[in-house]
């Protein structure tokens, strides 16, 4: 995969949300949701972005697509810097990048039929007229293995897994190159998760899609991703190819995170050593000085509080931000 060209380049991306309070809604603080992340996504790959709740992974996905405008930084998609695009230019660019959302119950309008939902991008972008839209919707429903005969039904008539397929069909309507999948399976039952993951893999193969796969399920990320980045409190802790990251994690956070994931095999579980992290993730309103992981890190030393560790390429294609590596 490494010989593929870069499709998306995220350069020092920052997204801060102001905290307002009082009668005059004065700004009293800042949530450092994403605080300077850089990585590249290569054409045709699945790039996994993992982290625990509140680490900023979903904000990162949305900021990359310009659903949130970044505080600073750049997002290069092809030749264009999305951060600099506005209005019609950005709108046109949006056809090439789409999103699949976590909650298949909240992301579909309950008052629209499936045909309207899946066809809406075509209407919004003024791409097709009514008859063509119908044909395209049928085609899309086939593609996600839903019966096109159901297109006149409403979302509540479908199960969670089927709704997620509808969300995928909508995302595919404009023939995008790049899709941000934001926790697409975490609301689904175990036996249904595999159905959706297999579908995403088949579609990638068939349509040459590039995925940014945001998830907290590290086992699934290992299964689906080519390369994986680990996020902690708004920054990247580590980035490497799947095999490298899971077999030779360098950052103490990655090591602890991987050791915490249970494996469905009692023989393996019996022998596993867990690194139990102390405490909780600190608040992104007031992140720790220096290394953000130092408050929970078993290896932390004085330097970790004083200096922010640089984001360095430790071995080829294996990046980490840690003083102790």
């Amino acid at each position, binding site marked *: 995969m490494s010989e593929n060209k870069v499709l998306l380049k995220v350069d020092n991306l920052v997204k801060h949300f102001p905290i307002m309070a009082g009668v005059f809604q004065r700004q009293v603080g800042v949530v450092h949701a994403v605080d300077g992340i850089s990585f590249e996504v290569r054409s045709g790959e699945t790039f996994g972005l993992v982290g*625990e*709740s509140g680490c900023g992974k979903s904000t990162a996905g949305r900021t990359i697509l310009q659903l949130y405008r970044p505080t600073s930084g750049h997002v290069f998609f092809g030749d264009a810097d999305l951060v600099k695009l506005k209005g019609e230019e950005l709108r046109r660019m949006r056809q090439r990048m789409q999103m699949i959302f976590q909650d298949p119950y909240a992301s579909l309008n309950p008052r629209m039929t499936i045909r309207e939902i899946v066809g809406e991008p075509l209407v919004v972008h003024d791409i097709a007229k009514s008859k063509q839209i119908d044909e395209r919707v049928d085609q899309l429903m086939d593609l996600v293995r839903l019966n096109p005969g159901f297109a006149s039904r409403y979302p509540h008539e479908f*199960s969670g*897994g089927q709704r997620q397929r509808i969300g995928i069909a909508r995302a595919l309507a404009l023939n995008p190159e790049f899709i941000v999948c934001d926790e697409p399976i975490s609301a689904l*039952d*175990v*036996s*249904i*998760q*595999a*159905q959706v*993951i*297999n579908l995403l*893999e088949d579609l990638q193969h068939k349509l040459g899609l590039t995925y940014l796969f945001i998830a*907290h399920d*590290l*086992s*699934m990320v*290992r*299964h*689906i991703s080519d390369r994986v980045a680990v996020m902690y409190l708004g920054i990247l802790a580590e980035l490497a190819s*799947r*095999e490298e990251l*899971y077999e030779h994690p360098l950052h103490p956070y990655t090591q*602890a*995170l*991987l*050791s*915490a*994931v*249970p*494996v*469905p*095999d*009692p*023989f*393996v*579980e019996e022998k*596993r050593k*867990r690194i*139990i*992290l102390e405490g*909780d*993730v600190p608040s992104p309103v007031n992140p720790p000085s220096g290394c953000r992981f130092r408050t929970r890190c078993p290896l932390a030393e004085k330097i970790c509080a004083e200096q922010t560790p640089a984001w360095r390429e430790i071995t080829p294609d294996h990046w980490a931000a840690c003083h102790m590596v």
Partner: protein
Amino acid sequence: MSSSDGRQTILKVEDLVTRFNTPEGIVYAVNGVSFELAESETLGVVGESGCGKSVTMLSVLQLIPRPPGRIVNGKAWFHEQDLLHLAPEEIRAVRGAQIGMIFQDPMTSLNPVLTIGKQVSEPLMLHLGMTKKDAEERVVELLRLVGIPEADKRLAQYPHQFSGGMRQRVMIAMALACNPQILIADEPTTALDVTIQAQIIELVKKLRDEIGMAVIWITHDLGVVAGMAQRVIVMYAGYIIEEAYVKELYSNPTHPYTHGLLNSLPRLDVSKERRLTDIPGLPPLLLEQPIGCPFKPRCPYGFDKCEANPPLVEIAVNHKVACWWDVKEGGLRNV
């Protein structure tokens, strides 16, 4: 089964049937479930949403809302009394005292307008008759036991001042307040991040071994069960479809559903390029009592015999399965 290693059976559920009257019709949530729990044993109960795993345990404690819920049949023996037929005040004396519970969502299981100190001391005063002062001292001890830093200072705080993991620790402290013989944990780590989940699991394992209580751990996560249960029950559509010791179950899954479920999971420790095996279709909605094997519509082996519901039978020592087809032998099972 539970007596095979010499341990006493502490809870014995027989042929439990629970239904709900809903506007859409009767929901057949639990359809004849029998199992035993041995002293100081950890029993994992696994299954997907709607399989009846929570309703089974809530029924045993008379915690399902009635109406719309209805326990149609069954017995639940605990110290020679049938929990299902205890009067309200009698079951209240068992719940929270001899049997402790923790639930999935630690935010909604705690009262937002009462301080943590007050909530944790409640069972102590209620069940053990402690005075307020004694109870408060014991609460500090309990909060320390479950790893809450500066426990004495946090007594006066409210649930919203605690993080998700800390709230679950408070729940555990409450459940353990009266030294229960059984702890029923209903998806207690599902809402938590993995590093916090690891903390909570470690804590429950440690307390379990120290106190010697039995644990029923309800979850959809086959990984969590693999690491902490000794015996596992797999549920589907309100039935137990397989039951075995944990190593036997994972190395020799025999029901096509258990088999399918284990194969549909990606693994953290393997990146062999393989397609996940998905289980086609959906679990049944249970608006009708399943006729025949409930897994038949999704089963790769379904044949005409499956029109009749297979009983849960012992196919090897301590390994029970409810399936007509012997996948290994490729033939009909001798039932």
